[in-house]
């Protein structure tokens, strides 16, 4: 049962992470390949502050806020870039962030990581045991879902989609593409920060090695598999992917196989991505709007 709770918490946190990436990738068309940086900033900020005795409510806000501020700063030079090059720039930023975490030993303890991060206490509620933490994580996930849902269904979300489809045409209609992309990027970063905060206080130990490109690719996979540009897609993606990954543990395969299974599983992931792109690029959940072609 605990394992199920544990996986549910992981799924909840990754849903937040994926939802936050989706507003950028799916709705605004920003190929953010450094999303893990904001997750890391949220996690580290909150962890370091609570380890200094700051209450969770404040450290959480700081974690989210720092992630958002970092998004703003990173957005200034990189949001001018088009498509793939924005991706490369953000990837570079994520590497810089990771290197700071790794090398500023005096602040972050570097590669030693931060052990003993406390479980949160919010308004005299302690979220210590697994079911309690699940409540917190699920609550945050639902909140994220609602907020992002509200934003993307609003006129603001419509502008984001328009920019994704055709930036020039959106500009011609008076939409300030840069400002809107910035807003989307900062919102995505804020929620990634929230996911990071929840992650740090759940897992209670973080180190720079947890925040690599592989993580970004995992969330990207979740978003794309679930259905980018849809509200439910990231959640479905997180559930399916994490369950699929973990169900392999229950096949009771001989441990000798693990050395083969590891790469094999990654190969299958790669293959799924490729096949998905060729045969169903929109993912499991489709974007709203009729596909049938009804010509006169």
């Amino acid at each position, binding site marked *: 049962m605990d394992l199920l709770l544990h996986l549910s918490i992981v799924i909840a946190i990754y849903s937040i992470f994926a939802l936050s990436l989706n507003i950028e990738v799916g709705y605004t068309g920003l190929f953010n390949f450094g999303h893990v940086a904001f997750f890391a900033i949220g996690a580290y900020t909150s962890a370091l502050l609570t380890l200094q005795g700051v209450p969770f409510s404040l450290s959480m806000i700081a974690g989210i806020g720092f992630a958002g501020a970092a998004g703003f700063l990173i957005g200034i030079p990189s949001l001018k870039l088009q498509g793939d090059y924005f991706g490369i720039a953000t990837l570079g930023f994520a590497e810089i962030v990771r290197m700071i975490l790794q090398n500023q030993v005096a602040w972050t303890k570097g590669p030693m*990581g931060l052990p003993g991060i406390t479980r949160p206490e919010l308004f005299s509620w302690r979220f210590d045991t697994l079911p309690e933490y699940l409540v917190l994580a699920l609550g945050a996930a639902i909140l994220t879902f609602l907020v992002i849902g509200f934003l993307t269904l609003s006129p603001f979300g419509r502008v984001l989609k328009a920019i994704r489809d055709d930036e020039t045409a959106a500009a011609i209609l008076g939409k300030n593409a840069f400002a809107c992309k910035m807003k989307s990027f900062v919102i995505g970063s804020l929620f990634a920060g929230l996911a990071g905060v929840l992650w740090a206080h759940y897992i209670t130990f973080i180190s720079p090695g947890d925040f690599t490109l592989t993580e970004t690719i995992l969330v990207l996979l979740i978003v794309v598999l679930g259905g980018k540009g849809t509200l439910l897609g990231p959640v479905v993606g997180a559930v399916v992917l994490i369950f699929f990954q973990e169900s392999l543990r229950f096949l009771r395969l001989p441990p000798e196989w693990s050395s083969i299974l590891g790469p094999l599983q990654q190969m299958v992931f790669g293959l799924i991505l490729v096949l998905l792109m060729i045969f169903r690029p929109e993912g499991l959940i489709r974007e709203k709007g009729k596909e049938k072609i009804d010509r006169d």
Partner: protein
Amino acid sequence: MKKLVVIASVVSLLVWFSVAPVRAAEDIKIGAAFALSGSIAVYGEGFKKCVDLAVEEINAKGGIKGKKIEIVYEDNKSNPKDCVTAVRKLITVDKVPVIFGPAGSSNFMAAAPVAQESKVVMLSAQGTAEKLTQAGKYIFRIIPSNSKQGQRLAKMAFDMGYRKLPVMYINNDWGLDLKDGFVTSFKKMGGVVTDIIPFDEKKTDYRTELLRANRGNPKAIVNLTYINEGAVQFKQAYEMGVKTQWLCGSAARAPKMVELAGKAAEGIMGTYPSVVQDTKAYQAFKAAYKKKYGDDKIPIFGDYNYDLVYLTARAIEKGGYTAEGIRKAMPAASKGYKGVTGDKTFDKDRGMQKADIGIWIVKNGKIEDYKK
């Protein structure tokens, strides 16, 4: 399309429940969250070999009070997240009271709070980080911490007459911890560390780092490196005509490193949590290993993992097959116990009090114990 989602979830759940293991009550199950895939899978496979060897031996002799030991392996995929999942699975699904924890200090430290919280004993055979066992009283290790090795390395450098040294270290938990241990001790002895050069894992080009370390042609350079990185570095240093005495830590002491670096590895020295190899126990272990696997290249830390099984078996025998029993019996079971890696008596921090740190040297393409 929605069908797809439904089918996918149903299949996952079915797989989940249908194969959830039925617990065989008669066996003694021990969990092992090892790196069987991912970046440090090379290590995990070696540990597993030695654990299997010990289990086989114990079971052949009648097991623990007639019950056979079974190891439940769980892949930790070499990353902290999956370490936690693996340990959780072992605790909740397989319901083991004792777990052999993941290798790699940060991986172990990510999983340790889970074991502590669930009141399950978790042991490390190879975690050397200073704070490894601080998660709580359910966490043990049977290898000396880095500070002890750092002290020994400093003493060795000092004894060999080196007073001014640059230090290179691999920029991860192990490297940083050992570097700190070394630098503190070396300075205390009156030595001077001329430069500190961290380097990244898994790179192919370390020439400029080496060049910087070698500036002023120091007589010796401390290089706390891993197998692959070490091989690349020693080779590139050799090509650039760097002539110095390399002083390493335990992680580079591997036949694979010597194989990769070839003659560039000749003469490299280092410290390691040693094991007196001419004891009867060790020779017997080596022979048994050779008999089972056909070669006598004992994997790095394999001997510690072998001891870990025996020590755990002793604790289960003394305290019974419950987590609480094992935890309480651990100190008594370890007291005066001589494994193949020496005295395994736990200290008050549930680590190793009596640390034997030895010195290794590469001679004629082979790793040997250094004798003056």
